[in-house]
């Protein structure tokens, strides 16, 4: 996409190109200032994170217009509840992505988007593709690290984690899509995430 190329090109915003390139401390500080009503700080927060948030929402919701709607709701929620971010409980980016993921998943599970559920079979038989072209230069290294970490998961764990996180499916749906006995997908998801956590926790 044109916009992606623009975002990846060198420019005054390269350090905050929407790919969460700002440091965790920066993001937490931007949230703190947002909580005090600082709209400029919130604009910086948006610029530093919107590519990642929008990419995730789009991945789950699929529909472009609906993804924009969800992304807007997410940022309004983040703005409104910015004072409730507690750095003791996790990073600012994780807090924001949790809100985004939940919002996207809630949207696709609501009745108005149930159409997407009909595509479940198609999604299951289509391998999950990573949209490499949209990667900003600043996140390429991080992406490479994550892709490597994913290789340490078993195929079954990786499918379960990807369908749940990137596909927005419930563990019951994941079990159906992968032909697993009911109830086993949640174990698969947890085991996969633990592996991912442990691998990513080791400095590259």
């Amino acid at each position: 996409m044109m916009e992606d190329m623009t975002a990846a090109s060198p420019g005054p915003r390269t350090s905050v190109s929407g790919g969460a390139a700002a440091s965790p401390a920066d993001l937490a500080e931007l949230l703190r200032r947002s909580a005090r009503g600082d709209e400029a700080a919130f604009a910086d927060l948006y610029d530093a994170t919107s590519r990642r948030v929008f990419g995730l929402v789009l991945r789950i919701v699929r529909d472009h217009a609906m993804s924009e709607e969800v992304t807007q709701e997410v940022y309004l929620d983040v703005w409104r509840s910015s004072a409730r971010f507690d750095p003791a409980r996790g990073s600012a980016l994780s807090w924001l992505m949790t809100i985004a993921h939940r919002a996207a998943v809630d949207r696709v599970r609501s009745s108005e988007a149930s159409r997407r559920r009909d595509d479940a079979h198609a999604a299951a038989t289509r391998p999950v593709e990573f949209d490499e072209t949209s990667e900003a230069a600043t996140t390429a290294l991080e992406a490479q690290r994550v892709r490597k970490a994913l290789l340490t998961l078993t195929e079954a764990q990786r499918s379960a984690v990807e369908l749940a996180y990137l596909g927005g499916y419930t563990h019951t749906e994941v079990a159906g899509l992968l032909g697993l006995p009911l109830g086993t997908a949640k174990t698969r998801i947890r085991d996969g995430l633990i592996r991912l956590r442990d691998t990513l926790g080791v400095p590259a």
Partner: protein
Amino acid sequence: MSPDLHHLSGAYAVDALDRAERESFEHHLSVCDACRAEVAELSDAAHSLAVLGEATPPASLRTSVLAGIAQVRPLPPLVTDSSLVSAADDPSTPVAPVVPLFRRASTWLAAAAAAAAIAVGGIAWSPWSGDAPTLSAVQQVERADDAATVTSHKGAVTATLAYSRRLDRSAITVAGMPPAPDGKTYQLWYVGSDEVARSAGFLTAGADGHGEAVLEGGIDGASAVGVTVEPTGGSQAPTTDPIMVMAVA
């Protein structure tokens, strides 16, 4: 409680639990430190996947987000949150007989924030219609000299809340609303800035999808009005996620 509950941490971290499981696990999280810590770690790991599929949103989205926040005041820090958690952790703390908080306050507030950004405005008072003897109770609220309205959309449903601080009343009008399922009813709530909900009566949708009601009780102290689906007869406090939330100024 089921010992299996701990194993839901991974599925919870990626929002893969269905609604009922999510709620029971969230209850478990409020009392299980190990699961809280694990969910935080596994969420981090899961969110790292988002780096693989970044996409640039249109510039118009940035414009509307920034226009949206300009109309919404950030909430104050949630002091009661941590005190509630520590009270739950400490078995010596007696459980206070207070009205329960909304279980998913953030859902309400997110919806309210979105609604506030969509439409907040005053209704112009019309002198030629203001004192008509045929005004319904709802219309009396709508025609108050300080009346304001908030409109919220959810799927095909449109809800409009009219309220008057001077009259200390509010009224809701809905269109496109399906009838409540068998054995259920739509219940109305005033939500305070402390996120405590107080029942404000019921709402019935007709066969044409239209419904209206003047809320029971005054709007004083409320920062939002919400609608939930409750068992017939209503609940003391919301037992389900709101289907509509409207922030009031």
